[in-house]
C-alpha cells in the first residue's frame, strides 16, 4: 500500500514536470516569416545570357530576435517569362553559385550541378532547384518569398 502510494505520487510529479518541460522543449513557435511578393529587379536588368544573381533581405522573427535573412535568387529571362530559382541546393542546403564558364549552377559542398533551368546535371541532388513564383509587372520582376 505504502509502496504504491510512493510510486503513484512520484509518477504524478514526474508526469507533471515532464509535461511542462516537454512543452517547452517541443515549442515550435520560434520562427515566422510572412509570405510576400517582393520587387526583385527591373526587367531590363535581367540579362538574357547568364542569370542575374540577387540577394534579397527578408525580415524574419527568430525567437527573441528580429533578424534579416539574406536569400539568394537567380533570375533569368528567355524573352517570354522570367524564371526565379532559389540558390539553395536541394541536396543538403548549401548555397549554389553560377559557373559562367561551364554554364551551370555549382554547389560547393557535395558537387551537385544544375543547368540554367535548374534541372540536375550531375551529383547527388534529388530534385531540380526550387522555382520561386515570379511575375513581371510594369517592367519590374516580382518574386514571391516565404
Amino acid at each position, binding site marked *: 500500500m505504502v509502496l504504491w502510494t510512493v510510486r503513484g505520487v512520484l509518477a504524478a510529479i514526474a508526469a507533471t514536470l515532464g509535461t511542462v518541460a516537454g512543452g517547452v522543449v517541443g515549442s515550435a513557435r520560434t520562427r515566422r516569416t510572412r509570405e510576400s511578393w517582393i520587387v526583385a529587379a527591373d526587367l531590363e536588368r535581367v540579362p538574357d545570357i547568364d542569370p542575374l544573381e540577387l540577394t534579397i533581405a527578408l525580415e524574419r522573427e*527568430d*525567437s527573441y530576435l528580429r*533578424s534579416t535573412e*539574406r536569400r539568394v535568387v537567380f533570375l533569368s529571362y528567355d524573352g517570354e517569362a522570367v524564371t526565379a530559382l532559389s540558390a539553395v541546393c536541394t541536396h543538403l*542546403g548549401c548555397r549554389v553559385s553560377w559557373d559562367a564558364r561551364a554554364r551551370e549552377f555549382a554547389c560547393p559542398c*557535395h558537387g551537385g550541378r544544375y543547368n540554367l533551368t535548374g534541372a540536375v546535371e550531375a551529383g547527388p541532388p534529388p530534385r531540380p532547384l526550387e522555382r520561386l513564383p515570379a511575375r513581371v509587372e510594369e517592367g519590374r520582376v516580382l518574386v514571391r518569398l516565404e
Partner: protein
Amino acid sequence: MSPGRAGGAAGIGDWLDARTGWRSIARWALDEPLPPGTGWLFTLGSVLLFLLATQALTGLALALYYAPTPDHAHDSVRFILSGVTFGRLVRDLHCFGASFIVVAATLHALRAFFFGAYRAPRELTWISGVLLLLLVLGFALTGYLLPFDQRAYWATVVTLNIARSTPIVGETVAGLLGGSGPPGAATLSRWYVLHVIVLPAVSVALVVGHVLLMRRHGLAGPIRHREGPAVPFYPRQALRDTIVVACVFVALMAFAIVGDAPLDAPADPSDAGYAPRPEWYFLWLFELLKRSPSSMDTVAALAVPLALALLVLLLPFLDRRATRPPARRPILGAAALFVVAGLAVLTGFGLADRPPTPTRWRARAIAGRTIAQREACVRCHRDGGIAHTFDRLRPSRDEAWIFSHVVDPEVIAPGIRTPPGPLLKSEAHAVVAWTRALRAGEPAPAMLPRDEHALSIIGAHCTPCHMIDDDGGAEGPNLSLVGRKHDADWISAWVADPLGVDPDAEMPAFADKLTAQQIRTVAEYLARRR
C-alpha cells in the same frame, strides 16, 4: 590522542579521514589489482580522463565570455581571442582538445577490440565506452556551431538537413534541434544547452559507470594470459599513466601555441565565396555524401553511420567465443581493418578536396578601404574619436546596416553636428565589400600604389556594371582581360565620352565624374590587364 588533536597536515588528514574515509577510497583507487603484463597500451583510459577534464575546464573558461545568440556569438568569440588574457590559448586548447579526444577514444576502442576485451562479463563496459565515443562526436557537432561563423553555419545547415531526411520523425527531430528554418536563435540556444548541460551530464554519468564497471571486472589484461599474482596500480602503472598523460599534455599545448583554431567570417548565407568543409573527423561522411547517388542519400547519411554504430555497440553479443588473440578471429579482424581503412581512405579524399577560397580583396574592397580613409570617416573613427577605430568595430553588423550608415551616417549615428556628405551608392557598396574582407580576417595583399589607386577608382565607379576578377555587375563587359582588346588611349577616350567613340554606346560618360588624371590611371591599369 584523538585524531583532531594531532598537529599539522597529518592531523587534518586524520580528522578528515575519520569523517569521510578518504584514505580507504584513495587506497581503493591506487591498489587496483592489475593482471600481470598490463603495460603502456593500457594508459589510454587515463589519457581520456585527462583530456575530458581539460575540455571541462577550458569550456568553463570560454562560457564566461561566450554569448549564445546569433547577433553576439561571433563577436563574443572574437573578444575571447583578442580581449581575454590567454583567451586564444584557451580556445585553441578546447578546439584541438576535441580532436585529441577523437583520436584517443578511437585508439582506446581499437585496443579493446583487438584485445577482445569486450567479451563477457565486460559487455556493458564496452557499450558504455561506445556510447561515450558517440557522445564525443555529439560534443564536436554541437560545439562547432557555437562561434556562428561560416563553417559553423554551413555544417549546421547540412546536419539539420540530414536530420530532416530521416523517415517519419525527420521534421520533429529537426524541430527539436531548433532547425525548422535556417540556423538561427533557436538553433544556437538549443545546441548550446546540449553542448554545456545535456551532453556533459550524460557523459559524467557514463564515465563514472564505465570506470566503476572496469573496476568491478578488472582489466582484461594482455591478449595472452600470463600466470602470476596481480600487480597493484600504484606505483608502476600510475607512473606509466602519468608519463603518457604528460606527453599528451605537452603535445596539446604545442598544438595550441603553434596552431590557430580557425574562426571564419560571421555566418552569411548569401556569400558565394565560401566552400564549406566539415571538421576532419567528419570528412569520411562528407565524402560518402558526395559519392552516393541521390536515391541513396538517406542510406549514406543515416543508415551507414547508424548501422556501423549499432554493429560496434552490439559487438559483445555478435562475437561470444572465448578466444582473444585477433589472429583467431580472422573474419571479424578483417572486417574491422576494412572499416578502419575505408574511413581512413575517405578521410584522405576529403582532405585532398579543399577548393581555394577566392580572395575577398578585389576592386570593391580596395576601393572601400580607400574611401574609409577619407576625412569624413576618420573624423569620427579615430583614436579618441566618438566612434571606434576600424579594427575595433563590430564587423558582424548586418551589411544592410553598414550600407545605410555609410550612405548617411546621421541616420544611424544621430547627433553628429556636421554629418559627412553622402556617398554614392556604388561607394557604399565598396565600403560594405571592404568590411566583408576585414571580417573574413584575410590580410590585405601587397600591391603597387598605382594599381591600388586604379582599383580604388574602378571599385567605386565601374563595378556597379562591370565585372573584374569575378566581382561586380554583369551589365557591361567583363574588364578582367580588357587589355587584350584595347590600349590605354582607347580606354581613356571611351571612359571620358563613350558616345564620342561609338554613337551607339550605352555606357554613361565619366568625364564629368572623374578627373582626366583618374581616367588615365584607370585606363593604364586596365590596358595592363591582358
